[in-house]
């Protein structure tokens, strides 16, 4: 209970705090609060894993009047993943975002924005109220847009604005859906909506919300804003944008379709959700193949990886009687979200190190860096392994679960897509790997990279591998408070 409150409030308080404290205290405070929030997140996870979902009625008011917060396994898993990524990003930014190097805007702006984002994310993970979710989404978008603009180049501002427009449009559509839902049912609480009497407007409401969320999740074809925004932001910011932000809106999608209105899920609609996902896998993969800049490759790989998660909608329930587990697809999708978060953050942080080292992220300029910065290269490779879904990484577990349920559900084309996507990923991560690995005249580094900094992405990458190697615990955690459709199918 208290842990739940802590993960909600601590980031916001800290965000305010870093505003007011003098510059030299900023970083220490950020680090300290990050540590505290991570601790709280861990505590919350333990309580959820031990004692089941944690409910909290804000101010003791029950819905529909009050606002319900609920930490189930899904939320807890995402919270802990967020905490890990945030912690790592904080450490990386500590090295990178010093006024001397990154300029005052970054040095000042990054910390509050990061903490604000953190708080908003946790709020979205936890809240059970559609309007609350809207507010959370808006906060996330604002923080994210601002983060994207932090590097302060015209390009960055343009990218940020494009992002903003998509985000605003998305939230407007979502809001419209919320309004319709309220007009129809007089409540916005997910729990109550599940038990509602279906109304005429539900379809439209759900459609509007879904479309808005797709725009925010940057699912194909709404991904166009993502690569420029992620590529032009400072590396730690890109890590946050790529690893965490899309997950929030995806989580809301899952809550909508699996918990609020599972009765509206028709096969056609589910297909309509999954097909763009498949398209994203292929499209993002192909575009990642032709990029010349490391960060763009990573960004497009995000576009592709987000697509996998949408396969959960048609595949859910395809557990198959033969399997010793239930809700394979659902768990697999979440596993994918988690491992992708960790791995993608690791990749962007590694890219940040390279940029700091040679001042550019063009593949041509990265040649031979593996020898100068072996740990970073290793981290990049490990993250790539996770994203390709090779064992024994979390990505592999996700892929395995998804593919199994694809076969068990008799929808093997999706399995084909999963396999092909993995090969595509191998293709587009091979180019940077070779560039880093090439034997070239050692490039003189602009600045020496401390081992501590190098170890940050490594830790994240190792975590993403461990997620697969020790996937039993997270697996069980995810089953806590799992919605019935996750196992029975939509």
């Amino acid at each position, binding site marked *: 209970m208290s842990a739940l409150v802590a993960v909600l409030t601590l980031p916001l308080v800290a965000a305010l705090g870093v505003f007011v404290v003098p510059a030299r205290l900023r970083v220490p405070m950020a680090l300290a609060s990050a540590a505290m929030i991570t601790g709280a997140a861990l505590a919350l996870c333990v309580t959820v894993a031990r004692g089941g979902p944690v409910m909290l009625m804000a101010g003791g008011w029950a819905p529909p009047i009050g606002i319900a917060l609920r930490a189930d396994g899904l939320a807890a898993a995402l919270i802990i993943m967020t905490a890990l990524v945030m912690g790592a990003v904080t450490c990386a930014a500590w090295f990178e975002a010093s006024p001397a190097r990154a300029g005052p805007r970054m040095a000042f702006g990054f910390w509050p924005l990061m903490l604000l984002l953190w708080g908003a994310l946790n709020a979205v993970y936890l809240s059970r109220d559609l309007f609350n979710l809207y507010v959370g989404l808006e906060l996330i978008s604002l923080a994210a847009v601002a983060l994207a603009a932090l590097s302060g180049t015209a390009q960055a501002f343009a990218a940020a604005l*494009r992002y903003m*427009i*998509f985000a605003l*449009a*998305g939230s407007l*559509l979502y809001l419209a859906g919320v309004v319709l839902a309220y007009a129809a049912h007089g409540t916005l609480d997910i729990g109550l909506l599940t038990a509602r009497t279906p109304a005429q407007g*539900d*379809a*439209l409401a*759900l*459609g*509007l919300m*879904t*479309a*808005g969320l*797709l*725009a925010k999740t940057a699912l194909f*074809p*709404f991904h*166009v804003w993502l690569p420029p925004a992620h590529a032009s932001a400072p590396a730690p910011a890109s890590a946050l944008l790529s690893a965490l932000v899309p997950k929030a809106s995806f989580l809301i999608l899952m809550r909508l379709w699996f918990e609020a209105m599972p009765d*509206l899920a*028709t*096969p*056609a*609609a589910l297909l*309509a959700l999954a097909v763009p996902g498949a398209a994203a896998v292929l*499209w993002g993969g*192909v*575009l990642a*193949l*032709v990029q010349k800049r490391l960060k763009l490759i990573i960004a497009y790989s995000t576009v592709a990886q987000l697509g996998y998660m949408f396969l959960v909608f048609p595949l859910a329930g395809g557990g198959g009687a033969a399997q010793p587990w239930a809700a394979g697809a659902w768990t697999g999708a979440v596993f994918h979200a988690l491992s992708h978060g960790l791995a993608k953050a690791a990749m962007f942080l590694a890219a940040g190190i390279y940029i700091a080292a040679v001042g550019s992220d063009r593949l041509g300029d990265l040649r031979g860096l593996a020898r100068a910065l072996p740990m970073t290269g290793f981290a990049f490779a490990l993250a790539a392994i996770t994203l390709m879904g090779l064992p024994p990484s979390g990505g592999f577990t996700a892929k395995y679960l998804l593919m199994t349920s694809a076969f068990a559900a008799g929808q093997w084309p999706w399995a084909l897509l999963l396999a092909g996507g993995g090969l595509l990923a191998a293709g587009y991560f091979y180019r940077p790997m070779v560039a880093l690995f090439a034997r070239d005249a050692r490039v003189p580094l602009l600045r020496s990279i401390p081992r501590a900094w190098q170890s940050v992405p490594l830790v994240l990458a190792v975590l993403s591998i461990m997620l697969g190697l020790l996937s039993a615990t997270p697996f069980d955690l995810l089953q806590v408070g799992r919605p019935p459709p996750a196992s029975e199918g939509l």
Partner: protein
Amino acid sequence: MTALYSGTFLPLGVLVWPLLVGLVAMVVWSRGALWVLPLAPVPALGFVVAGAPGSVVVPDLLLGVHLGIVPGGALLLGMTALVWTVAGMHAALTLRAGPQAAVFAGFWCVTLAGNLGVFLAGDIVTFYLAFAAVSLAAWFLVIHERTQKALAAGRQYITLAVLGEAALLVGLMIGAAAAEDLHIASVRAALVDAPLGPLGVAALVLGFGIKAGMVPLHLWLPVAHPAAPVPGSAVLSGAIVNAGLIGMMLFVPDGTGWGDVLVAAGLVGGFGAALWGLTQRNPKAVLAYSTISQMGLMLMLVGAGSAGVAYYAFHHGLAKAALFLCVGVMAAAQTPRQRGATLGLVVLVALSVAGLPLTGGGVAKLAGKQGLPDALSLVLTLSSMTTTLVLVWFVLRLAQAPAPPLAPSPLWRSLFAGAAVLGGLALVAPWAVWGHATGLPTGYPAQPANMFAGIWPLLAGLGAAALIPGQRLPEYPPGDILALLRWRGGGWSGRAGAARSAAPRRHWRRAVLRALLHVRRLETHMRPWPRAGWVLIVTALTFSGLVLWTL
């Protein structure tokens, strides 16, 4: 873990000793390598003199090694050991020492071990091992001179040898699979009515036939003999070919029609080869053809199930080795006296081979006729004619061989002694074992009928030889059929791999790249906001619609 070996160690020692000697020759004491050669066959000699006692089983070795004298093997083993001993001395005296000699000595011993092995092997794997050793290691004896001629001959030899090995393996496998046992006897028995029996026997005949110089598989023989150094050709013709013979005797089962095949091939070889020998100029080539014809006769005997094959081969091995050595002796002969003496020895041995009554050859022919149908025994009688012809021709060629530059050669005596020993043994030794081997009364060869049957074809042959105008015989290169089908040595110098031009695939690659760039341009067209906005709205409505209408 069972005992290391059971039985008497002797047979194993007979085989291991030459290998040790060879190792010493090749690795330890390469300067004096050639001088150890005569020692290599000594235990084998002792073993035979002791009556080839005992057998041994070494379960751990290979797939379980069984050693013991094979039926009819004692005579051949003894003969082989003798030939190798004398030839070894000859080699030690004539060949130049040096690293090459070391290699020669080493493989000489391996060949010897194999050659002895085929007469001792009790199971097919050991037999196959011995056979492989004798036929492949002999390659080094052929190419020892390293001349173009020798290398070419070696190439043909090794090709046929490997071919034979492969065929042999197939045959043995079929037999073993049918017998579910590795003993030679049971394999032979199983081959009769095994599902793939005919194929197996055919493969075996092919494998052994190549070694035994069975027409038309004899191709290597007339080419290899002239190319090899004198002692080499002596063991090739005297001893090694018998490996094929013993194979035929051991494996080709009776009453499968294969005997007739052997008889037919033997007849063709027996007469054809002898006559073809007349077209040769090189004395060693002539001898080689005579060997082919003699082997043909022996194969015929095997096919006809004669009891005296081993006996016949015993004599022929000694005699033929002696003749080949005489070629070397002749080359070392300086004075006319020495040449005369050598020729005398040659004529004696040749007469014996031709089957002069009361000589070793004569009695061998008589022994061979035991158990033969009359027609075939008549054939055997007649064969003396052709044999006489070809040997006369050989003597002529040898006599006309150019005398070497007059340099006092101390070797001649010892060389001549060696050859004389073998020749003498060829003449008398058959008598020594006559009763023991054939079980016939000692007086049998002296009976008038047999005397007559031995003498008249000989005289006829001599007469024919007198009529033949020596110089106007046609001359063909050795290796009759080979001359027709010139075999190209594939893969002897690694041909460059098929150079696939990389052009098309590079083009293909470029096409893919272009396609990717198109995709990229498409992406930039998707980026403008208004389009995306419209798509967004459409999506929203699509979802609502889908949900509405499919609900």
